[in-house]
């Protein structure tokens, strides 16, 4: 019945050829087949929730980055690029690379050595049940809300390119994710994410390749943008950030560096279990570290398939895109449609099917990432300690499978929340700043400062969350408060998020340190394997220099600096 509806809905639009349909249907068939095939390998909780901890560095690394290549990466950032220009590439460079390398070299050894199943699980070992419960519940809420973004983005794609009914699109893809995650757990999600990684790259790369040929290369594209948008600078990453009014985002370099580059980025990449779970499933610590660095490399070049199409849309589209709030106007296309419109511009029969498949794969990988992370945190950090402590291994596996289905249904319910925001990515960052940024402060202080106490872990985390929420509410109720929160009334949504993240992290750190100084720390013997200075960290000295994580991390760092200088 599903397939019949699928074909019927697809045929409603003339732009889809039979070969496109075959490509899309083949993808869904393979994804479901993989889930069914892998079910037999996930019979224990360790296999279902942690993929048996046997991933190679390439699989862990590609899955790590693919879980992040969801709707945010593709549609959201292409839309934001059309709105704010190349400044958005900070999300991939200063907003990702330092944090990913920090995760690989500094934090992963602790996650790996203590053999926790999740980031909230680490907080339990380090700070006790209070911090774990708070982080687990807030993470579960955030994860389910984030799934709504994937749903909404996918439905937009289907509406724009294929003319599909928005509800039909949501149900087909989300039920597919539910089936393969229910069947094979994290193992199935990881396998599919690696497959999706290839599809996303091959499907989306068509746009920058053909687009740059059309514009006569990078310089030709720059010239067209300057002609289409005279007086606006969409093409510099740092040189226009000396003042809030000097760039389309209304961002100042302090906000980019400390808000985005430190608070948001380190929060997401080092403590968001959605991505960390993938590398924690690696077969050993060195594979986990190298996999993370492989992920950093690919993250650094993702702008080619996301930012460049956004810039090309500025250069070649014969009309201007409008904010979501004006999307109802006749013949109007919104910022969020930038990438789909570019795909439709260059992709004929066959390639259009591949491009649509790439986008659907992106949404499904992002959604599967959310669902598997939610399932693990719910089962290990909420259900097991708070509801049913001593159940059998098979019971927890069963709970995980049903929880996957429940997570998908709840996600569907949240999809429509997204429509109240001007750009998808803004919604995402609002949620991140509420929950993830404070978690970074708590985890990193717990890892690096042995004086941090269990009480401080809980109160610091709570202070960060409440500060973020209070600042957001303050600006919502009184827009003039933006001048205090973000230092300027010019600050746009993304810029406001950066500063709110910074305040949230500051509140977290101040409260954690203050409470630590007046409460009793844990004895040293309880901190072994959890805190720097109390843990025997393995040495890479026995490996040749080209097999050491530090070598490859240094290479990525050099490329990162070079890119920032090149697009200064």
């Amino acid at each position, binding site marked *: 019945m599903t397939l019949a509806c699928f074909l019927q809905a697809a045929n409603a639009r003339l732009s889809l050829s039979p*070969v496109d349909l075959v490509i899309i249907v083949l993808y869904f068939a393979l994804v479901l087949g993989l889930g069914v095939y892998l079910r037999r390998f996930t019979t224990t909780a360790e296999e279902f929730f942690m993929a048996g901890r046997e991933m190679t560095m390439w699989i862990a690394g590609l899955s790590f980055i693919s879980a992040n290549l969801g709707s945010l990466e593709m549609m959201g950032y292409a839309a934001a690029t059309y709105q704010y220009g190349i400044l958005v590439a900070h999300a991939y460079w200063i907003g990702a690379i330092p944090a990913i390398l920090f995760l690989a070299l500094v934090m992963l050894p602790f996650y790996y050595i203590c053999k926790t199943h999740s980031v909230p699980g680490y907080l339990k070992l380090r700070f006790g049940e209070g911090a774990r419960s708070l982080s687990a519940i807030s993470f579960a809420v955030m994860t389910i809300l984030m799934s709504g973004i994937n749903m909404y983005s996918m439905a937009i794609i289907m509406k724009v390119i294929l003319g599909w009914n928005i509800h039909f699109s949501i149900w087909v893809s989300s039920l597919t994710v539910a089936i393969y995650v229910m069947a094979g757990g994290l193992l199935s999600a990881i396998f599919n994410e690696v*497959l999706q990684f290839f599809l996303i790259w091959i499907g989306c790369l068509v746009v920058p390749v*053909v687009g740059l040929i059309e514009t006569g290369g990078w310089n030709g594209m720059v010239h067209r943008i300057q002609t289409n948008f005279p007086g606006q600078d969409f093409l510099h990453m740092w040189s226009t950030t000396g003042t809030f009014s000097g760039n389309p985002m209304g961002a100042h370099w302090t906000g980019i560096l400390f808000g985005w580059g430190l608070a948001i980025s380190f929060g997401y990449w080092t403590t968001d279990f959605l991505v960390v779970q993938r590398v924690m499933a690696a077969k050993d610590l060195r594979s986990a570290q190298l996999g993370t660095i492989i992920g950093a490399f690919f993250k650094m070049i993702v702008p080619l398939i996301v930012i460049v199409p956004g810039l090309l849309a500025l250069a070649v589209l014969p009309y201007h895109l409008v904010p979501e709030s004006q999307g109802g106007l006749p013949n109007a296309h919104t910022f969020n449609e930038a990438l789909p419109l570019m795909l439709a511009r260059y992709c004929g029969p*066959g390639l259009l099917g591949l491009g649509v498949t790439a986008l659907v794969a992106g949404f499904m990988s992002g959604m599967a990432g959310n669902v598997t992370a939610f399932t693990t945190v719910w089962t290990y950090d909420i259900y097991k300690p708070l509801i049913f402590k001593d159940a059998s291994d098979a019971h927890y596996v069963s709970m995980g499978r049903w929880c996957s289905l429940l997570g998908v249904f709840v996600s569907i319910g949240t999809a429509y929340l997204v429509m109240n925001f001007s750009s998808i990515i803004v919604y995402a960052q609002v949620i991140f700043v509420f929950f993830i940024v404070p978690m970074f402060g708590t985890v990193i202080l717990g890892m690096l400062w042995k004086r941090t106490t269990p009480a401080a872990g809980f109160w610091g985390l709570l202070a960060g969350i409440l500060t973020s929420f209070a600042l957001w509410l303050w600006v919502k109720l009184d827009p003039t408060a933006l001048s205090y929160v973000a230092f300027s009334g010019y600050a746009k949504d993304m810029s406001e998020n950066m500063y709110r993240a910074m305040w949230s992290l500051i509140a977290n750190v101040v409260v954690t340190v203050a409470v630590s100084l007046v409460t009793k720390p844990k004895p040293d013997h309880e901190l072994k394997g959890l805190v720097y200075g109390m843990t025997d960290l393995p040495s890479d000295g026995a490996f040749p220099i080209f097999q050491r994580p530090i070598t490859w991390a240094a290479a990525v760092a050099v490329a990162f600096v070079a890119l920032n200088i090149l697009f200064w």
Partner: protein
Amino acid sequence: MEKHSISVWFFIGTLLATYGVLILGSGIYGLFVPPDHTVAMSYLHIDIWWGSGMLLFGAVYVVRFRPKRKNL
């Protein structure tokens, strides 16, 4: 991943090779029967190039990671 009898890379190669055949075939068909709706830069015949590349890439993965027959 050794315990899984079919490698994930084999699945990837199979899918990409199949897609390569479909896209290449569609591109060649388009040379003789142009589609109703032409896209920008259609003279490049990017589908033929892209399909060929995918077919080659997928075939390499299929051969390299094909399931090995176990010795009895």
